[in-house]
């Protein structure tokens, strides 16, 4: 030994200074100093295995490794770079935040690395280094196993290991106290053709020393000597451990003297080795003495070191000394993760009591958000199967120590997640004893676990457990969590009985019923309801029954069940009674359906209503009205009359005296007439009522009888009624009478259109045209819907082949200017001939339209027909015409689409491959949409295929269309069921599509699936941006932030909108930190994204204000604006957003301070932009008084003169004018106008409009032409023009 130490002295003399200055040591864990950390780590190979973690960031691993690998010349290296960075970021984040890595994360990164093909050396190193003390939640042996798995797997994949990998593995061995043979290890290295270096030897020495094998250590030391390698403090520290473990404490202590002799002052590592040695022996006195000695020296032990001593005591079986060391811990905030990791490690080692002791000593602030700080401990106890009673006791202690508000509940949740039934039972009992209720849904996670494995016995056990706990399974438990594991509900009943599992028959039956209903088994429902003897709540069944109805299309069963509900004494008989209950059921049924569903099932529903009528089922009128409104909003008013027949009229009459029946009204009318009193009002009322009852005959009779008392309103309703009943003759006569009564009276647009339709249909063309003329004369409002109605009138006529009607009405509509000719409106002119297969006339008509109106209606259909019929000459004619009028490209596209449509793909291919043809997105989109509308899958697929090489073609758009048609999500689901996995691109496109269609839930489903099935699944820029926007909208800000990180890691440029929304959302939450994180993330990319610095300035300030850090926010803004080196030019320092949000949020204290700040900036620093911004925002939000208080208008005026650089002068003038208008201050407004015109300032229309209105209101003349449009118009115009200038 002496020789060995002598040689060490010699070595040391040769190598100068000791390796570890204190300053460097303290830098450990500090960010941005990888090399400091690195030296430290290399030098401080911990002699004690399983050592607590240094927080040194994993970045240092990468930094170190990158230096080592500089010559590694692989191309895959670069390819893997982004993959590596991603993995690094995940692991690094975890280590930085918590000082540990969860096993699942490491597994995930490992899997991803394997999948990436040939993992690089850096990745391998990163993974290996993670397998030591960074995994406190894993048993030591498991960690080493993990490391070996990684080692072998990566080697198989072709990773080449160098000395750093072997060293890393050694370190993991040391940390995991793995027993191995150092000579074998060296042999392994030799076989791998890798030369050991100083670090290798150092660690091998540590390995020997850990086993107490001084001889082995000496051998290695000998090697080092022959190679002239320096002996560092780490070696000495290891030797301290080695001697101690070999039972030779005396020599262990001597090492310190030897070191000093050799010229190395023992550092903290050496002392720590010694302290651990004492601790392992349970020698508290020496530990204390040594600690005192260190304290007196200029050395310094960190919390981390003290924790290490605690670990040594605990593992050696001396927990009684832990408190004495705990007292010395300072609990610096940055060591809390270390403390947590020690606690986890102790739990892993089944030293839970000691772990709890340390936890309880943690000075965590009790009232802060960390009030459930103890969660990590409880969760880990559950994982390592700490005995239930013991855990229960811990819960109690944590609660008493206020380290957890609800430890039992939390631990129960962990137990449920981990499917630990026995533990769960103990915890539930404890909860119950403490007076907490045990709820049914507590058992669901357990049932889910068994359900996944179809474990019937397990389910029975849980149900029994529920019974023990005094909980009765409810319907939901059966329907959602029990039934699915069985083949049939009958077998559930049998199994429960067999196992003596108690169950409430009533609940069970109702659950069964619900289950059957949801599956559309209406037969069962009916027979159950017929034979049922149990009391029964219809309300509980309503939802399932509605689902069942919608799943089954058997209308007879629908009706029978409804009848039973209505008539049978067992159901719906209590107040409010069957009429009401069934009425609501019908309402809910229709309400639950979508409009397309109702439209598709129109006939079924009609049948259903008629069958109900037959069965004498009635519904209240108010519910009928609700249903009518629903049907109206679904665009199926045709069903209204069919529901109407169910209305219970008699009752309505007697009950609601306020609403008399038509017969009541009629007798009243007659009575009034007889008394010679005015009857106009009541007559109109009666007519309207008859109209709503669709009783045309009676209404017309009544009109004839009391013609002289008819008023305009009555006529209008009658005309409409006749139109509905297709009665052109009476409609026309009524219209004439209506005109006679009051020639200036105007009908509403819809009634005019209906008249035109009916008259046209009955060949009364001239009358129809007269109506159109009247519409023009009386300036009836023409809406988009009106134009569409015109089209339908024309198209209906065209389909009936009524050439004259189409031509004349079209001519009238267009020449009167009621609608402009368009490819849609004018298409019936062509349809006429296409329907008759008269192709030459059809083509002629299209060409005619072009000559008259410059449109080519239905050219595509005409071409298709020509191609089908092989009309070569006509095709040529059409093509010549199009080519000449609209250019060759248009012609080629027309032909291309026509060939595609008619299945002539070869010809289509030739066309699209014409040299020089380019993509025309709008035309391609038009065709895509057309294919989608007509469900032409093949055609669209061909389009996508043929346009592959088309120049400048947006493939994404085409794929979207294709996916749309594929009903993509369903395909995804089907494929998922069949375990078919698509490629990355397919999923990415699908997600993008779903996000674009705002189906974010489905998008997430696809994303989750893709992520678990495609290693390294990525989305493209656009999809990630959309995803961020969606996540922000759904308030998943953390996820959105992760997405942003992911996108940036992939070198994507997210959209400005996405980033801005995320920033704004975080700011509104007061999350300053996230906003700053984002700023760091996008640092350097601002220009590519298009982000202004102001986004951050505004939002950070907003977040701070939301957090009540108003002063901080204001101070930092003020500093930015007044400091010497400004990053943003003051005139671009726009704070309008911040101000608006503060005003909108009514954050009065903040607003007040901001006001003071902007005034100060203006007065003392001559910075005027903020004051103007605030002024404008105040005016904008109607706070004119505040604006004025901030800045008197004269001040504003002088400001405008003062600040030539103000960019938004125009807006400021507008605002000033606006404030004068508010005040009706004509004189000032005049002065402003005159001064501006004198200066030749160009005034916008909004300004002029305001001024003009002010003058007019004041009764003064306007010295210019008042802009004719509305305020809104000019405001919008101004806004738009500003946007285009931006």
């Amino acid at each position: 030994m002496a020789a060995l130490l002598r040689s060490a002295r010699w070595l040391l003399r040769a190598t100068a200074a000791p390796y570890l200055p204190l300053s460097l040591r303290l830098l450990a864990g500090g960010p941005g100093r990888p090399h400091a950390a690195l030296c430290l780590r290399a030098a401080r190979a911990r002699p004690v295995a399983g050592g607590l973690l240094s927080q040194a960031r994993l970045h240092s691993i990468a930094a170190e490794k990158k230096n080592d690998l500089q010559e590694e010349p692989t191309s895959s290296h670069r390819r893997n770079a982004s993959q590596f960075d991603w993995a690094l970021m995940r692991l690094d984040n975890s280590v930085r935040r918590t000082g540990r890595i969860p096993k699942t994360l490491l597994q995930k990164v490992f899997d991803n690395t394997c999948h990436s093909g040939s993992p690089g050396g850096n990745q391998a190193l990163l993974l290996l280094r993670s397998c030591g003390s960074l995994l406190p939640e894993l048993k030591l042996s498991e960690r080493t196993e993990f490391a070996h798995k990684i080692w072998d797997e990566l080697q198989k994949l072709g990773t080449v290991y160098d000395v750093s990998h072997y060293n890393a593995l050694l370190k993991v061995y040391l940390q995991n106290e793995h027993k191995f043979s150092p000579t074998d290890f060296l042999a392994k290295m030799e076989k791998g053709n890798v030369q050991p270096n100083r670090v290798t030897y150092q660690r091998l020495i540590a390995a020997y020393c850990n086993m107490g094998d001084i001889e082995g250590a000496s051998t290695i030391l000998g090697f080092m000597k022959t190679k002239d390698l320096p002996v560092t403090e780490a070696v000495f520290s290891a030797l301290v451990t080695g001697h101690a473990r070999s039972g030779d404490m005396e020599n262990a202590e001597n090492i310190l003297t030897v070191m000093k002799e050799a010229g190395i002052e023992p550092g903290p590592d050496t002392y720590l080795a010694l302290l651990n040695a004492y601790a392992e022996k349970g020698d508290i006195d020496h530990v204390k003495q040594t600690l005192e000695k260190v304290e007196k020296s200029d050395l310094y032990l960190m919390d981390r070191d003290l924790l290490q001593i605690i670990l040594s005591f605990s593992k050696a079986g001396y927990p009684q000394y832990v408190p004495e060391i705990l007292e010395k811990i300072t609990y610096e905030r940055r060591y809390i993760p270390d403390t947590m990791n020690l606690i986890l490690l102790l739990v892993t080692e089944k030293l839970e009591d000691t772990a709890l002791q340390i936890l309880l000593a943690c000075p965590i602030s009790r009232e802060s958000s960390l009030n459930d700080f103890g969660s990590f401990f409880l969760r880990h106890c559950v994982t390592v199967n700490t005995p239930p009673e013991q855990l229960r006791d811990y819960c109690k202690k944590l609660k008493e120590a206020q380290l957890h508000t609800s430890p039992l509940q939390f631990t129960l949740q962990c137990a449920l997640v981990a499917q630990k039934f026995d533990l769960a039972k103990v915890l539930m009992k404890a909860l119950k004893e403490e007076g907490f209720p045990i709820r049914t849904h507590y058992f669901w996670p357990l049932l889910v676990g068994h359900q996944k494995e179809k474990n019937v016995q397990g389910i029975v056990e849980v149900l029994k457990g529920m019974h023990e706990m005094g909980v009765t399974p409810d319907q939901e438990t059966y329907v959602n969590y029990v039934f699915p594991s069985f083949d049939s509900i009958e077998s559930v009943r049998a199994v429960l009985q067999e196992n003596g599992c108690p169950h409430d028959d009533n609940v069970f039956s109702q659950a069964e019923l619900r289950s059957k209903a949801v599956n559309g088994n209406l037969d069962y429902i009916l027979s159950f309801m017929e034979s049922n003897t149990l009391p029964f709540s219809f309300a509980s069944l309503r939802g399932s029954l509605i689902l069942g109805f919608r799943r089954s299309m058997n209308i007879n069963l629908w009706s029978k069940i409804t009848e039973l509900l209505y008539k049978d004494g067992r159901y719906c008989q209590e107040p409010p009674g069957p009429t009401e209950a069934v009425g609501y059921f019908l309402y809910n049924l229709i309400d639950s359906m979508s409009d397309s569903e109702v439209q598709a099932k129109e006939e079924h529903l009609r049948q259903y209503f008629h069958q109900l009528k037959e069965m004498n089922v009635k519904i209240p009128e108010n519910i009928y009205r609700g249903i009518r409104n629903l049907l109206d909003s679904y665009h199926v008013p045709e069903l209204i009359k069919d529901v109407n027949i169910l209305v219970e009229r008699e009752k309505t009459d007697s009950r609601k005296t306020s609403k008399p029946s038509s017969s009541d009204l009629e007798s009243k009318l007659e009575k009034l007439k007889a008394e010679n009193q005015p009857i106009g009002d009541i007559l109109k009322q009666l007519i309207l009522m008859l109209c709503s009852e669709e009783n045309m005959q009676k209404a017309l009779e009544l009109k004839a009888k009391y013609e002289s008392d008819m008023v305009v309103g009555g006529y209008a309703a009658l005309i409409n009624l006749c139109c509905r009943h297709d009665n052109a003759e009476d409609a026309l006569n009524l219209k004439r009478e209506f005109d006679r009564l009051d020639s200036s009276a105007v009908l509403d647009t819809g009634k005019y259109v209906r008249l035109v339709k009916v008259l046209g249909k009955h060949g009364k063309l001239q009358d129809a045209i007269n109506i159109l003329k009247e519409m023009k004369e009386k300036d009836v409002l023409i809406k988009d819907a009106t134009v569409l109605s015109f089209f339908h009138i024309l198209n209906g006529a065209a389909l009936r082949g009524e050439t004259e009607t189409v031509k004349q009405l079209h001519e009238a509509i267009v020449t009167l200017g009621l609608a402009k000719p368009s490819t849609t409106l004018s298409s019936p002119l062509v349809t006429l001939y296409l329907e008759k297969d008269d192709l030459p006339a059809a083509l002629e008509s299209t060409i005619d339209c072009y000559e008259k109106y410059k449109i080519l209606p239905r050219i595509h259909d005409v071409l298709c027909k020509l191609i089908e019929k092989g009309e070569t000459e006509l095709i040529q004619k059409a093509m010549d015409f199009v080519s000449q009028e609209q250019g060759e490209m248009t012609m080629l596209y027309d032909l291309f689409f026509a060939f595609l449509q008619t299945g002539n793909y070869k010809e289509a291919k030739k066309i699209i491959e014409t040299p020089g043809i380019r993509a025309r997105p709008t035309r391609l989109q038009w065709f895509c949409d057309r294919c989608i509308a007509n469900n032409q899958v093949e055609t669209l697929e061909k389009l996508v295929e043929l346009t592959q090489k088309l120049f400048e073609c947006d493939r994404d758009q085409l794929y979207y269309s294709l996916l749309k048609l594929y009903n993509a999500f369903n395909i995804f689901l089907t494929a998922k069921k069949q375990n078919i996995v698509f490629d990355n691109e397919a999923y990415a496109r699908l997600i993008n599509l779903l996000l674009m269609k705002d189906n974010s839930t489905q998008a997430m489903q696809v994303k989750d699936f893709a992520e678990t099935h495609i290693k390294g699944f990525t989305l493209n820029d656009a999809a990630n941006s959309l995803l961020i926007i969606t996540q922000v909208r759904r308030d998943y800000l953390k996820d959105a932030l992760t997405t942003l990180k992911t996108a940036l890691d992939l070198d994507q440029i997210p959209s400005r909108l996405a980033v801005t929304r995320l920033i704004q959302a975080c700011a509104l939450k007061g999350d300053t930190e996230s906003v700053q994180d984002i700023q760091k993330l996008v640092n350097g990319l601002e220009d590519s994204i298009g982000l202004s610095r102001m986004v951050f300035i505004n939002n950070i300030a907003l977040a701070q204000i939301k957090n009540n850090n108003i002063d901080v926010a204001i101070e930092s803004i003020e500093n930015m604006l007044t400091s010497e080196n400004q990053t943003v030019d003051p005139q671009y320092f726009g704070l309008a957003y911040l101000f608006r949000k503060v005003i909108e949020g009514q954050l009065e204290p903040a607003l007040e301070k901001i006001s003071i700040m902007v005034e100060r900036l203006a007065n003392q620093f001559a910075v005027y932009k903020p004051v103007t911004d605030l002024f404008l925002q105040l005016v904008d939000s109607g706070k004119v008084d505040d604006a004025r208080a901030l800045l008197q208008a004269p001040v504003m005026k002088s400001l405008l003169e003062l600040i030539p650089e103000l960019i938004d002068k125009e807006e400021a003038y507008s605002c000033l004018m606006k404030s004068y208008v508010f005040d009706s201050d004509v004189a000032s407004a005049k002065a402003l106008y005159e001064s501006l015109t004198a200066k030749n300032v160009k005034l916008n229309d909004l300004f002029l409009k305001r001024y003009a209105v002010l003058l007019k209101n004041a009764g003064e003349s306007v010295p210019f032409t008042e802009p004719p449009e509305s305020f809104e118009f000019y405001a919008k115009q101004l806004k738009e023009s500003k946007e285009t200038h931006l």
Partner: protein
Amino acid sequence: MAASAARGAVALRTNVGRPVAFVRKIPWTAASSELREHFAQFGHVRKCTVPFDKETGFHKGMGWIHFSSEEELHNALQQENHVIDGVKLHVQPQRPKALQGDQTSDEEKDF
């Protein structure tokens, strides 16, 4: 997809203008009956949903309370603290979906 779009439309139609509170951060120990019980103090709860994840047997911490009237919803929103099982809930009005699209559309221009 059509079906889901249709469902979306139904949801939209159902929620626009109807008094619904959107509740987040519901503790795992509480389910719809606990929520209903709590919110009954503010008015008549027509419907209360706390969807459970059938894959895990836990709910996701979110729920919807349908009140009979705007006033009742208002009452509920007025109350500052909603605590169930010792956990503070986040309660906010359910925003009509149609509005959400526009909300930020003009906000980017300020920069």
